[in-house]
């Protein structure tokens, strides 16, 4: 009897936003340290939000990591975590 499997794409938008927030804080702090943006203005907050959104977009739209090969050629089914 043959086992049948189908590939599924698992996306992590929440993780993407969380990691994006962390990276966004880093970007904002580094830009502030280099005096590119000013602490005490809305700009650092905007930077954090933009990077968080980009993180979420990355987690949704980035090409899926390759998984171990299986004996199937079925197109993967998208799934959100």
């Amino acid at each position, binding site marked *: 009897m043959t*086992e*049948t*499997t*189908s*590939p*599924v*794409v*698992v*996306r*992590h938008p929440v*993780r*993407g936003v*969380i*990691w*994006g*927030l*962390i*990276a*966004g*804080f*880093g*970007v*904002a*702090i*580094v830009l*502030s*340290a*280099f*005096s*590119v*943006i*000013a*602490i*005490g*203005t809305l700009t650092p907050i905007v930077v954090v939000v933009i*990077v968080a959104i980009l*993180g979420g977009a*990355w*987690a*949704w739209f*980035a*090409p*899926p*990591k*390759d*998984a171990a090969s*299986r004996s199937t050629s079925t197109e*993967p*089914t998208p799934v959100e975590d």
Partner: protein
Amino acid sequence: VGGRRILAVGGLILLAAVAAAGPVVAQDGPLPEVPPGVPGEFDLMPGQGLYDEFESQLGLVDPGDFGGGSTLTGPCFGMALSYDPDGELIAAAGDFNDGAPPVDLLDGGQAFTSSNPFKVHADGVVVYGGRATAPDGNGPLDHSWYIRTQGISLDAGGDPNPEGKNNNAGMVDLRDSLPIKFTGLIKVDGSITSANGLTCSGGGFVQFVGPFPLFTALGGAGAALLALGGVGLLFNARPAITWKG
């Protein structure tokens, strides 16, 4: 004296200067116990004279508000000079005109703006002096002041000032005062009010300069967060193919 104090000095140094009571003492000559000497190239003239000279020359100067975010309104006047660790003057600003924004004493433009912030060095010193006179002619009696950034208080204080003193001067050594060295551009605003009707408010940009930003605690922390977030995005948030069967 800590980081908040430094931010206070940087952000609204003119307000802070006039807030505390303590007269500027004009010196016509050396103190009796100090032997007379020859002024050096970098010696400053007595503070009162220097202040009066700036006030007489710049009292009517209005650099115009170019929308850079610096203001100082009310009967509070003063100036601040910033030096790097080598004693080089890196910034000088003053406000001697009620209602007009502060003036850059080095180039005559508007000071404390986002494009022309007041520079302070993490290992430098800031010398300041100022005056504030309430409508009744006295200094600010029973006054209180605050300095904040984005609504968050950086420092606050006050003084009964029962003698009604209206001027003050001093120096802040940032090398000893900063709890951690950092660089960056900060927007601050503040206000001082007194029981006898004095109200001054203002705000502007202060730029901390010094070591390479990534070698400071703040810059290093930012780089670490950026690296952590990047690793998380690459290896923990990327879509993955799994198998269902």
